[in-house]
């Protein structure tokens, strides 16, 4: 085969490949376009079907929501039925907490036990009745944190609470709002400190609660790295003879006398169709408010920014005139404001 022929064959193949590349790009364009067109035609058909469904729904005294569901008016469940369900949830939580405690006792290391004991004793010493009645440590974890070029070993403590008939799992944890439950020690003093704990050279009785000035100094030092511990911690103490601290953030709710029936019937005064979905709180504000206002520790409110919320919507059987009810756990006041019944409407353009 001479040279010209070889060039001819190669050129032919390349030419065909270029033509094929055009054909492929047209194919992609065509497929994409066809898909879009069939989707569009499908949604147009869907709109017509939607109109028929809406008419059928309206004829049966229902409300056809933007999400395509036909909602009917429902008579609210009796309070005791709601609370029975709530009781089951609480029972599940209690089981979960019990299992967590069991697991913690199984896997906790000697060092973690020493740190946890100090944290527990400190908390119990300051709030005797409260700690014994409500607090259940469920986890402890150690991590290194660098604060202004100094490395600290931090034992984060996570706890669950029991308040009357309410259980909350891991409310004091290190990922969420209540993350200021910890024992921190400078890394190079860690072993010495744990040794001192082991030999009872340091006990919770020796810990001295910080005053406002010391708290402010700690805030300057640990801000950022220990997630504003000085703002949030209810109980805060420096470690005597060591560079470190113990912090306790109390769960801001004492619901001992609040029963489910009481809460639900109060919320229903706003709207009988509201759906009770539990307790809500704004913990961060709680701590900051206390520190900023310089309120002494014994006056710390335990119910600040804690509320029970419930709202009615199509799914709770309310087809019009829906409300959001909020019961303030501090003042016991109930607020009631109108809201949109069709929540799905917000997401449909």
């Amino acid at each position, binding site marked *: 085969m001479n040279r010209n022929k070889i060039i001819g064959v190669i050129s*032919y193949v390349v*030419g065909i490949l270029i033509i094929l590349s055009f054909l492929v790009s*047209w194919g992609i364009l065509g497929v*994409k376009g066809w898909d*879009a067109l069939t989707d569009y035609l499908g949604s147009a058909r869907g709109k017509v079907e939607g109109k028929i469904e809406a008419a059928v729904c309206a004829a049966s005294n229902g409300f056809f929501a933007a999400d395509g569901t036909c909602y009917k008016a429902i008579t609210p469940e009796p309070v005791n039925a709601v609370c029975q369900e709530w009781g089951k949830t609480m029972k599940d939580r209690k089981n979960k907490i019990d299992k967590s405690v069991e697991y913690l006792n199984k896997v906790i290391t000697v060092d973690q036990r020493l740190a946890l004991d100090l944290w527990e004793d400190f908390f119990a010493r300051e709030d005797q009745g409260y700690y014994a009645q409500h607090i259940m440590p469920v986890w402890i974890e150690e991590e290194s944190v660098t604060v202004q070029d100094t490395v600290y070993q931090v034992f984060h403590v996570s706890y669950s609470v029991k308040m009357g008939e309410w259980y909350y799992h891991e409310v004091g944890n290190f990922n969420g709002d209540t993350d200021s439950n910890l024992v921190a020690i400078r890394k190079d003093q860690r072993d010495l400190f744990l040794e001192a704990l082991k030999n009872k050279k340091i006990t919770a009785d020796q810990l001295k609660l910080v005053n406002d000035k010391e708290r402010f100094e700690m805030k300057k030092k640990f801000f950022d790295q220990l997630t504003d511990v000085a703002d949030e911690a209810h109980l805060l103490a420096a470690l005597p003879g060591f560079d470190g601290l113990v912090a306790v953030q109390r769960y801001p709710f004492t619901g001992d006398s609040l029963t489910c029936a009481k809460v639900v019937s109060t919320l229903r005064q706003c709207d009988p169709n509201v759906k009770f979905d539990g307790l809500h709180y704004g913990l961060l504000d709680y701590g900051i408010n206390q520190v900023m206002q310089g309120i002494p520790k014994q006056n710390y409110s335990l119910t600040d920014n804690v509320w029970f919320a419930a709202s009615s919507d199509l799914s709770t059987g309310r087809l019009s005139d829906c409300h959001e009810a909020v019961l303030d756990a501090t003042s016991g006041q109930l607020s009631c404001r109108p809201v949109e019944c069709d929540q799905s409407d917000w997401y449909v353009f």
Partner: protein
Amino acid sequence: MFFLQLLIPVANAFTETSAQPMVESFGFAPYDPFDNLMRLWFWAVLLIIAPIVCFFVAKSQAKKMAVDVAFSAMRQFFRLLVKLLVATFLCSFLFIVVDRLVDFFHNSRSLAIDLYDLKYFVGRFYIIFSTGCFSAGAALLLYVRKNARIFLIAIPLILIFVAMVIFAFINSL
């Protein structure tokens, strides 16, 4: 109008801005389906109309060259180049006319062309011209078997497209 309504979702499928408002230099502008329709129209000219026209323009010239053993490669190249320039200019003109008319009727913009428009149209023309050349190059390559010298004309045409791709790539960095 019905046809346009059918085309809008097709146009949207080719752009990222289908469901969101477009961000323009002066802030947020409401989403306009006609913007995507115009993009689709450009794609049609760029990838379908101009390449097909240029393919057949080049093919008819290659047929003649294939039987002419002693043609001047330089002369034939420039002749073809002028034909391709005219053909792609007409395609670009078609694109521009539709684009301007939509702007005029739909966006109530003036038909006057300012410097910004001119730069936009020249840019569009160059891109359309390069895909036209690529397609013409492919047409010529099919005739190299009959006359190897056609290769000398096909290569620069394909290189015009390659240059455009490299330029676009550098520009996107």
